[in-house]
């Protein structure tokens, strides 16, 4: 047949595209028919058989590599022990659980002192166990006592009582291994404690805020606690399970992924004395809050200093600009995190800050905890002008700021330092001391004046007042629902928003990201009940469907935040709220509610508040402290805190303010979403 398709199809190329696609699937068939032609192949195939021998070079190299790897491993193997955790409540993991890996999975340890000190991965202490056994290479089992743990690096120090001294590895004080060098993870496996190795290259150093070496060896749980050696047999680190912040539900989630971490030996060596004395080592916290929103942007000015934090004790102040940390020069906040990340609680570091033109050296002693946030609010809506001037755009009736601040006021200072950006103001308030009056110096009709405002906690009942009404655009029919899509995922999403136009930028549009229950497959029509209320309330609503009809999966966390970012590129909106339909008083909880919490606790960067059902199931993610540079608030359809789920309490004590929404309806939810821009 020789049909021209142009008459059947409006567009030739389009038609061909279709055929191409169809044929794409049909080819196999053709091949199938094609199947049995023999041709000259037989003859050539024989040649293959003859060329089977590997090239000399590759054979030599690979056999040489094998020797080198074995030599390196053998030089430490006598000090590598297996660690058995006996009698753990939870054993084999079940799907949907935080960890794929059972708590009693056998891991490894390294003898670091002949007297019987064994360093292991903290994973052996993850769940209370009846006993922990150290299995020596010769099969001898010794019961171990836990001396100490380094929660900062995920290590545990165990102690066994051997009859005679044990062969210990010696940890180097310093290492010099370039990225790209072959490294070998060493362990023992199974009942015969057979040697186990996995080789790869050093992928990077100073990972996870400067604490870890990274290699691409396939490190499975059996290697945790085992040594990472280079081809000279030098112990350069101890393999531990770890993932990046918000990277995965559980520290073990990345086993075998080719992204493996090890605690550098020199660091461990430094920490050993403390561990041997039974001291628990924890990450050191400081309590400083940056001005900048983007940690990769230049600028190290402090927006605020946490109440009763090491920074405050050491006399650091809002407005300070950090120059060096422990001798390291810094010009991005990310570098500050990187530099601080390596220090433990109780360690003192010296920080050079610039204040009023002078450089001061401040010694700070880091702490293991900082009193949890109790984010505050005065009830003001401000606008930031080009020159970084803040003018009052609105005041929330009945709020502390009511009849203290007036629309048009220009905010000069809060307490004794200037506020030049909305972020600064919000972070100042989020970290403000509850019940303590703040002095706001304002410029009103060219006159400076000072007012005292005592902020109030964000936690508590949802304010019934709202901002000045959102002015509808000329066309007062409801906003249309448009599709939003990421090219690489199949999640359906749609949003209702006004036609983009210049006036929008300044109208304080809110944004509510709505996760739909898995059973809902059509995002566009799911928005129907929202179009009118959204238009009324001046809040853009983005509805996202799960990929699969059955569930929301952890991998979709990043889908949601990418879509949110994408939308904020299209419509100028204020801070984003994340919610599920379950947040509405009358609807039931679904997987979406759990997902909302999961996202908020993992990658919450784009979100300032979340709303979810009181009967939501807790997600399988690690609980993190609320952070002032991205303070998150929770809204639930409850009258009093006790109506919330039991797991709400740990959230509260981690600094997440709980807003009591009562019987929430769409209007109330959207009002709350828009109020996220009120400080």
């Amino acid at each position: 047949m020789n049909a021209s398709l142009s008459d059947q199809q409006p567009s030739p190329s389009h038609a061909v595209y279709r055929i191409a696609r169809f044929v794409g699937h049909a080819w196999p068939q053709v091949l199938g028919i094609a199947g049995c032609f023999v041709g000259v192949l037989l003859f050539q195939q024989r040649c293959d058989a003859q060329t089977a021998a590997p090239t000399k070079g590759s054979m030599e190299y690979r056999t040489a590599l094998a020797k080198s790897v074995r030599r390196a491993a053998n030089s430490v193997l006598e000090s590598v022990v297996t660690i058995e955790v006996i009698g753990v409540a939870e054993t084999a993991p079940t799907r949907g659980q935080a960890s794929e890996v059972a708590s009693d999975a056998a891991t490894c340890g390294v003898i670091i002192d002949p007297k019987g000190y064994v360093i292991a991965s903290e994973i052996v202490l993850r769940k209370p166990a009846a006993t922990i056994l150290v299995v020596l290479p010769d099969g001898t089992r010794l019961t171990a006592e836990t001396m100490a743990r380094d929660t900062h690096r995920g290590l545990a120090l165990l102690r066994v009582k051997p009859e005679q001294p044990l062969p210990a590895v010696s940890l180097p004080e310093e290492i010099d291994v370039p990225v790209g060098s072959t490294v070998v993870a060493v362990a023992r496996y199974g009942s015969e404690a057979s040697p186990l190795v996995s080789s790869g290259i050093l992928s990077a150093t100073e990972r996870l805020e400067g604490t870890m070496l990274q290699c691409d060896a396939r490190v499975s749980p059996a290697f945790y606690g085992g040594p990472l050696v280079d081809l000279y047999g030098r112990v350069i680190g101890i393999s531990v399970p770890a993932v990046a912040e918000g990277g995965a539900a559980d520290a073990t989630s990345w086993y075998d992924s080719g992204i493996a971490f090890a605690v550098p030996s020199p660091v461990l060596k430094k920490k050993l004395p403390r561990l041997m004395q039974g001291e628990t080592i924890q990450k050191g916290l400081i309590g400083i809050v940056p001005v900048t929103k983007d940690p990769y942007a230049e600028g190290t000015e402090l927006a605020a200093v946490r109440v009763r934090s090491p920074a405050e004790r050491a006399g650091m102040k809002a407005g300070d600009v950090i120059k060096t940390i422990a001798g390291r020069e810094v010009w991005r906040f990310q570098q500050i995190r990187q530099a601080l990340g390596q220090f433990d609680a109780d360690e003192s570091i010296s920080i050079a800050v610039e204040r009023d033109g002078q450089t001061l050296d401040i010694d700070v002693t880091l702490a293991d905890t900082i009193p949890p946030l109790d984010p505050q609010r005065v009830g003001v809506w401000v606008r930031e002008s080009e020159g970084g001037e803040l003018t009052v755009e609105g005041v929330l009736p009945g709020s502390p700021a009511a009849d203290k601040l007036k629309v048009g006021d220009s905010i000069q200072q809060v307490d004794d330092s200037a506020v030049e950006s909305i972020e600064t103001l919000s972070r100042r308030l989020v970290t403000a001391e509850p019940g303590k009056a703040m002095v706001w110096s304002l410029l009103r009709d060219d006159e400076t004046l000072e007012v005292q405002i005592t902020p109030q906690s964000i936690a508590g009942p949802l304010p019934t007042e709202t901002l000045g009404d959102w002015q509808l655009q000329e066309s007062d029919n409801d906003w249309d629902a448009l599709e939003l899509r990421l090219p690489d995922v199949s999640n359906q999403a749609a949003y209702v928003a006004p036609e983009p136009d210049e006036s929008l930028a300044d109208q304080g549009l809110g944004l509510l990201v709505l996760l739909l229950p898995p059973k809902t497959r059509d995002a566009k029509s799911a928005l129907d009940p929202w179009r009118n209320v959204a238009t009324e309330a001046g809040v853009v609503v983005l509805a996202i469907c799960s990929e699969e009809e059955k569930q929301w999966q952890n991998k979709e966390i990043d889908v949601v935040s990418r879509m949110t970012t994408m939308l904020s590129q299209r419509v100028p909106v204020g801070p984003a709220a994340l919610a599920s339909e379950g947040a509405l008083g009358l609807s039931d909880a679904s997987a979406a509610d759990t997902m909302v919490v999961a996202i908020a606790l993992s990658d919450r960067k784009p979100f300032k508040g979340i709303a979810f059902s009181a009967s939501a199931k807790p997600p399988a993610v690690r609980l993190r402290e609320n952070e002032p540079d991205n303070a998150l608030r929770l809204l639930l359809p409850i009258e009093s805190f006790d109506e919330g789920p039991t797991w709400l309490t740990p959230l509260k004590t981690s600094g997440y303010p709980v807003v009591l929404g009562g019987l929430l309806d769409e209007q109330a939810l959207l009002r709350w979403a828009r109020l996220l821009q009120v400080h």
Partner: protein
Amino acid sequence: MIRQLLDLYWIRPALAPVSCRQTRLTPRGSNLKLNVCKPLACVLTLLTGISFSHAQPPVDSDSRAIQTKVVKIYGAGGMKQLEAYQSGFLVSPEGHVATVWSYVLDVEPIVVLDDGRRFEAKIIGIQPALELAVLKIDASDLPYLEVPKNLTASWGDPVLAVSNLFGIAAGDEPASVMQGMIAGISNLDARRGTFKTAYNGRVLLLDLIANNPGAAGGAVVDATGQLVGMLGKELRDSGTGVWLNYALPIDALRVAIGDVIAGRTTTVPKESNPILKRDQSHNLTTLGMVLVPNVLESTPAFVDAVMKDSPASKAGLQEDDLILLLDGQRIADQQVLTDLLRRVDRRDAISITVQRGSEILPLRLRP
């Protein structure tokens, strides 16, 4: 997306969504050259071997040689949303293919060679205890992997694993090559149910992620190009929840492969014989066994109870035994078992193979 593809494969086994240029570059072309000026070619390979432009001498020629001996196998499974394909490798020039014994072989499989030729294969023998199956295709003069007399492998040895993992290759696309090393050699922990496999013995643990869907049956060779193992099925330690990367050592398989090829042992499924009248054929009661309640869509044939003095008890069948084979035919589930019994005259004795714990036992039940 992979899933959709798999189903596609299922609907028409050996369907190739697409093939690739690679096939043109590889031996077909280059070997013709070889025939003409082989010495030269060898010299060249030698040179590239020690060429210093490379950070490390590439393993491409090695890989290519192995790819030509690895086959793609398509069979059953798609309907159950399982991968309907796996890998295998040629062990004789006459078209004997070693692969893992799995549900994929519940139907007569289709074998697609590296050059894209497609054959309907016969299952000429299986060895449940080794999870091994040997297929035969009707071809000759094929490139094949020598099955070595004894295994000279130790931990730390570099290996290449060649398989059709995820069914990426189709038609005349070469199978996928992965590199890594033998991480260790260890017995599979025999704790009951720790690993859902009948195999109980030494395995080669690998430090590459080899055991993916479709990879089972792939070949593992060492730096000298010698076959050292066969990639096993996906295996997850139900005790620890950890996926295992491993291969069955070739020395464990050697005898079985040889026996099957030599026709010494054969467990070929019988030609399907007709269904007999109920009162003439065997059934569970005539044999004196009770299986666990058949509640699932496909309930495994676990023995729940054995009647006193019944053929079953005389043969030594026990509670919790899992029936794997009946007269050499694979018992996928209870349904299959009862169907097969309907075809056996109740005056005849039957042979079954059961898994008890991690042992595999042959039993003969005489009426």
